[in-house]
């Protein structure tokens, strides 16, 4: 097994990480589609001074990985997050949203 791939948010301009399109572009640049098919673990490091990581950016970046993982556990086995405490539950919510049943009239 290779060394884990590291995605360090401090390398991308912050502290506001927003926009679906930016997330999708970053995903393509980091080649996460290929990372999803390999057995390697990905470490995601979000710096302390971050103001926000919005759901649109997060799901643009990790959305297809969450959907292809099929469950929270499997996603977190592959993607390990080191993030400020206020962002952890938020991002967990984003992961849940990606996996949610989409029935408005339930």
């Amino acid at each position: 097994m290779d060394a884990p791939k590291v995605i360090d948010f401090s390398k991308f301009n912050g502290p506001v990480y927003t926009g679906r399109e930016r997330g999708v572009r970053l995903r393509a640049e980091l080649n996460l589609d290929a990372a999803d098919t390999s057995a390697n673990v990905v470490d995601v490091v979000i710096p302390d001074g971050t103001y926000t990581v919005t759901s649109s950016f997060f799901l643009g970046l990790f959305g297809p990985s969450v959907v292809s993982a099929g469950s929270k556990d499997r996603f977190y086995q592959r993607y390990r997050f080191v993030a400020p405490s206020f962002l952890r539950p938020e991002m967990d919510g984003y992961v849940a949203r990606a996996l949610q049943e989409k029935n408005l009239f339930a």
Partner: protein
Amino acid sequence: MQHFAKFDVPRYLHEKRLRKRKNRLRRELRSAKRNSDRRTVESMLGTSSKVLEMIAGACSAVGRQQRKGRVAFTAPKNFSLLENPSETLASISRFAADCLTTRLKAVYIDLSKTTVYDAGANGLLDVVVDEVETLARKAKRKIHWSGVYPADEKLKRLVKALGVIKFLEVKHEFPKKKEASMLEVFEVRCKHYVRAVRANETDKKSRTTQKFADHVNECLGRVGRQLTAQARHLLCAYVTEVLDNAEEHSLMYDWTIQGYLDTHGKDWTCEIVLFNFGRSIADSLSGLPTYSYTWGMIAPYLLRHGPNFWNGRWRREDLLTLIALQQSVSWKNQSKADTRGNGTYDLIRFFQQMSDESNETEKQFQPKMMLISGTTQILFDGKYKMSPNSAGLGVLAFNSSNDLNSPPDPQYVNGLKQAGFPGTLLSIKFPLSPGHSSTAAVEGEASWTRRK
């Protein structure tokens, strides 16, 4: 030494003609280049303002004074998008239509009758003024601007700090240093029609959001408070999702964000307004084909409450705007695997959190948020709350059972009768308690004129 004109007249005349011809050619060349540059700019940007035309809508200037190039705008008594959106939008539409007259010479803005004035109405008026002034600058014309302030000192300060005075740079009418030190003002307009998204770079939207969060922190700092990291995240998510939605769905990159806090007096009110021009929320959904994934998701709602043989109460635009607020509804979703449609969910969540906190600490009034998109207005005041349905999806049906199978409350969701907004606008107002009184109002003149 004698000048050769004295002894060689033909040579002198020949050289003089040559010089004149050279200068004429140079002038013609310069003028051709200038005209070509102007034509290029005009062919790309047009000779009129698209935004002004959109605000004017179906209104047209018909008065004699307008034809002479003199426009007078009298704001209604209740000039507020939160409290009187229909009349406010109609008055701004008429003003924009009047300003579209060719050879505009003088504009008079009368706010003397206005007793209620909010940042939303002010923001729209600013855009009209900005567009008219930009057009005049491009055409190398000068417009004579004048007007009358509202009688209320508080409203007068808003006009000076964030209104037409600021936009027209009427420096002699700017708030005095002492007065300005008690105001927190934030204003950004993005007029860039080319959007370049880069993975490694922050865009204007992100930078504006960061500055806006710092602005709100400065406002809160005045009452000895500070946004927690969690609240700052929610605020940033709120602002940025609204701007992102504006850019992605309206198909026009023209957005404005304004924030205002006046700390004179005892009751402090923080106002935020965000708006963009382009397609409305209902427009972006109504363009979907009936076989699409999202249409399948929202069609039952339209069938249940839309205009039909038995019930003609609900307009399709109103229902489309309301259903678009629900979690996971986005015209860009094409299958269950798509994860769009969370922006408005975050926005409503932020407002609800603020409303709940206000309930505990502030007793002056409840925070209010008005969403206007096209000809639909939706009011948020904390009465109806978004909550997860049995599938876990955030739903806000605007009825007591919070059930999309029941119709919404017409007090909160309804159509604008007189005029709409060509895009989407969010206006929000919430109280801040300073816990101490401040200095008295600063006296000044009742009217203003821009000096040339």
